[in-house]
């Protein structure tokens, strides 16, 4: 992704990899995404149900996945919306259209965060080296999302689906720490990447 036609390239804080579900743990940085922090009073959210294709109907600490997009509700009036990189502008416009006339705040945070996928049988053990939450299926089922801490870094933890794949989002300057932390925690589980 070097400079073409004078347009600045995009430099990810961690080089992206594809998660490997076969090994006990796989820790792979994800590619670029479009991300928005949406703030909207909960009553409004109930009224509109969705914006720009992102579902707003989930409860606090849930994530609704559709297509390539995730709508993670982190608080009563806060959503982290994640979509394909190339659709960033289109998504934000669509959201603004859908919420037009309401009190809301939509802020582009695409570059603020980095994402790392932690997958595999031992994914929870690895995450629980630094996350104090209960990640058992009963406590953190597929479709869960929350802000929390991993060691000394704030993260957003999302479990989009049923497989043992967890999506760890953090502010980009914490990415090296978060990645290092996960790698360290995964060391005892043998080969990983």
């Amino acid at each position, binding site marked *: 992704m070097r400079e073409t036609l004078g347009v600045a390239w995009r430099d990810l804080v961690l080089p992206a990899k594809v998660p490997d579900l076969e090994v006990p743990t796989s820790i792979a940085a994800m590619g670029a995404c479009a991300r928005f922090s949406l703030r909207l009073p909960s009553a409004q959210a109930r009224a509109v149900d969705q914006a720009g294709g992102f579902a707003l109907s989930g409860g*606090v*600490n849930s994530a609704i996945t559709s297509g390539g997009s995730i709508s993670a509700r*982190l*608080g*009563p009036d*806060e959503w982290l919306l994640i979509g394909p990189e190339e659709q960033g502008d289109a998504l934000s416009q669509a959201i603004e259209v859908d919420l037009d006339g309401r009190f809301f705040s939509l802020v582009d945070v695409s570059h603020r965060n980095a994402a790392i996928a932690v997958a595999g049988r031992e994914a929870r053990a690895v995450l629980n080296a630094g996350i*104090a*939450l209960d990640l058992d299926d009963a406590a953190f089922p597929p479709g869960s999302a*929350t*802000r*929390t*801490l991993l060691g000394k870094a*704030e993260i957003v933890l999302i479990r989009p689906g049923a497989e043992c794949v967890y999506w760890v989002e953090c502010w980009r300057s914490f990415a090296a720490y978060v990645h290092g932390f996960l790698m360290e925690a995964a060391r005892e589980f043998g080969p990983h990447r």
Partner: protein
Amino acid sequence: MLLVNCPYCGARPEIEFRCGGEAHIARPVQPSALDDEAWAEHLYFRTNPKGTHAERWLHVHGCGRWFNALRDTVSDAFTASYTMGEQRPDAGKEGE
């Protein structure tokens, strides 16, 4: 490490929270109308009770919401958490 009950997220480990001290100390509507004594009282003087304490908590590494909670400062047991603006659940019984 306490287990703090966020009204929005449920029970979460204390490290996700920041405690904001005594609750229900409303900022005066017109601070300039207060004399120095009353202003000092607002800024600095606290109940600091040995017993039930109404206090503010921020779920800073969670939903980001401020809320209030009642906790016994001897046993550290929480008896209630409630959203900002709600009345203290044991109102009228403070100071016991």
